[in-house]
């Protein structure tokens, strides 16, 4: 049952990812990308990470994709003119297939070490996923968390300066 569900959602994810690449209209690409994000959120739920699924939907599908769709509509980008044959298309596809082949080859040869950190489904259900994330974030990862807030501040300032009239 779980395997069947995984296969179905994985097929939807791969097809919509292919549509992101192949659609001529950027709006269609953006909507396919949102579908891929929802499929990934489903996988996060299957992997016992409900908090990650929630912020995948809220931050990625909600905030970032709305920003992208907004910019596409603001700039009024039309569909790309259909070009029959490009070297970039062929070479890019060959490189992509080679990359996939290399990764799968690497995956086939590798095994897990067997070391286990002790976190399992029972603990996640008992304590709560958000609480576990919060504890790790505010104890072990406090410095990266603070640096992230500085990064966001810099990004806000950068975005404001870049969208000034004269640049």
């Amino acid at each position, binding site marked *: 049952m779980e395997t069947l569900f995984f296969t179905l959602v994985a097929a939807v994810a791969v097809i919509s990812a292919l549509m992101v690449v192949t659609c001529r209209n950027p709006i269609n690409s953006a909507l396919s990308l949102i579908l891929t994000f929802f499929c990934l959120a489903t996988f996060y739920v299957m992997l016992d990470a409900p908090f990650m699924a929630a912020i995948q939907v809220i931050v990625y599908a909600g905030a970032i994709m709305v920003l992208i769709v907004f910019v596409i509509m603001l700039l009024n980008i039309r569909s790309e003119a259909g070009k029959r044959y490009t070297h970039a298309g062929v070479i890019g596809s060959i490189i992509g297939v080679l990359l996939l082949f290399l990764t799968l080859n690497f995956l086939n040869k590798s095994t897990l070490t067997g070391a286990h950190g002790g976190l399992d489904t029972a603990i996640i259900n008992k304590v709560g996923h958000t609480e576990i994330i919060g504890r790790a974030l505010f104890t072990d990862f406090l410095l990266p968390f603070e640096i992230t807030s500085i990064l*966001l501040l810099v990004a806000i300032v950068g975005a404001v300066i870049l969208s000034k009239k004269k640049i």
Partner: protein
Amino acid sequence: MLSLHSYLILSAILFSIGTVGVLIRRNAIVIFMCVELMLNSVNMTFIAFSKYLGNIDGQIFVFFVMTVAAAEAAVGLALMIAFYKNRESNDVEDLNLMKW
């Protein structure tokens, strides 16, 4: 229970699709979306490893990747709007000012 390999293979496929998109598309915003796709496939690898190794650190990394992606989206889209205002185009082949 599904094996770790099925998740890793799926995320390898998604990453390769994203790479092909970055290489063959010309529209800067579509390239940006393909980069987001690659980031997401890596996120799924992190979460799958986090589950199968029983360690929460992978999910914290996903949290940081999402934050960086949000910052990247804000700055990148502002750059694209500035570029469009100057050149009336969103095509990466018109971005050749620094080409040698």
